[in-house]
């Protein structure tokens, strides 16, 4: 079709045969670097927090083609809560400027594991990073949790939120944990909380057997252990658009070579 919306006279019109159509679809999938057409299991998936967050990023970069990366960075920064630390380091900004793929991961844990009495309020999160295309290296990764304003019982309190990487699981005793971050939260604050898990994600991508997930724990200022729900953190039973997820930024580290067919 030309600029006047008229069909180009030299264009040969014919309907593709079924096998030609299939081959053409394979070629387009190959251009997209996909071995086959993905078959996601979506119930309400499109309205979940991760796809909505990613769609926001997409809309921003699509609306400003000239400054795609800057747009991505701006949008990304604007999604952060006022209470959370800004992207201040030169290294973080450089990572985001370099990103040519962003990927979000849904939390796979349906129910929390049976933890010991000491860790009975720990909450577990697991993400599948096994399908990262070859040649993609993690430049930045964040674990995102949504916090709502809590009930009046704790309104003037502060909580200590700790995020751990699970190092090793044992059948007869508690898992070995590595503290990634400890953060104070106001009970009344509301919005997304982001935790830098770049190093952890890199380990998981390079060595999938070490991907045993994350755990979080919460304590009041008096040291009392509380559940994440009591602290206002949205879990599986919460709103779809506030579900926890992780997001990772990647950079192509190898020249992409199309496979021989």
């Amino acid at each position: 079709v030309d600029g006047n919306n008229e069909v180009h006279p030299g264009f040969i019109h014919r309907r593709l045969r079924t096998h030609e159509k299939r081959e053409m679809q394979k070629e387009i999938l190959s251009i997209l670097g996909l071995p086959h057409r993905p078959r996601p299991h979506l119930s309400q998936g499109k309205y979940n927090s991760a796809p909505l967050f990613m769609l926001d990023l997409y809309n921003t970069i699509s609306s400003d083609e000239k400054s795609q990366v800057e747009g991505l960075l701006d949008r990304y920064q604007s999604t952060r809560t006022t209470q959370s630390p800004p992207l201040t380091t030169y290294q973080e900004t450089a990572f985001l400027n370099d990103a040519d793929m962003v990927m979000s991961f849904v939390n796979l844990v349906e129910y929390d594991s049976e933890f010991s009495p000491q860790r009975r309020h720990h909450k577990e999160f697991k993400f599948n990073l096994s399908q990262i295309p070859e040649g993609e290296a993690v430049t930045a990764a964040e674990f995102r949790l949504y916090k709502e304003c809590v009930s009046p019982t704790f309104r003037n309190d502060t909580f200590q939120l700790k995020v751990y990487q699970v190092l090793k699981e044992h059948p007869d005793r508690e898992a070995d944990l590595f503290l990634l971050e400890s953060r104070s939260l106001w009970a009344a604050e509301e919005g997304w909380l982001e935790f830098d898990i770049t190093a952890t994600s890199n380990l998981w991508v390079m060595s999938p057997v070490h991907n045993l997930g994350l755990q979080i724990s919460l304590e009041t200022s008096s040291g009392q252990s509380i559940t994440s729900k009591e602290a206002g953190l949205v879990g599986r039973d919460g709103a779809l658009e506030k579900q926890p997820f992780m997001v990772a930024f990647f950079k192509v580290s190898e020249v992409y070579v199309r496979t021989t067919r």
Partner: protein
Amino acid sequence: STGGKRRQQNRNRSTQPQDGSRGLGPADYNSSDQKTACRRHELYVSFRDLGWQDWIIAPEGYAANYCDGECSFPLNAHMNATNHAIVQTLVHLMNPENVPKPCCAPTKLHAISVLYFDDNSNVILKKYKNMVVRACGCH
């Protein structure tokens, strides 16, 4: 090998100057040259028509475009001809049986971003380079 038949088809094409066209006006060249000149044509790849909306969240499709037309002397009639296209044309004129004319091909390509689900319902936002033909020229 398909030159004769192709040229006949090309003569019937309508003139549609490409964006940013410069150089001599239409009166300076033979009108048939203008009609068959190398230029960009629109071609939309629709993910919706492929029935891929279940895994591609955005876009619904993209204007991939393609290049088509003749690259014949004088090359000024064609936008974005490379310097080597002139050499290629001269050699073709000297030995038309063995040396082909310059090719009408993309000179400017742009990227698109695609947002899609993978098999695990994770979401990928990826920039694909060289997906959209912005300008065509003779190489």
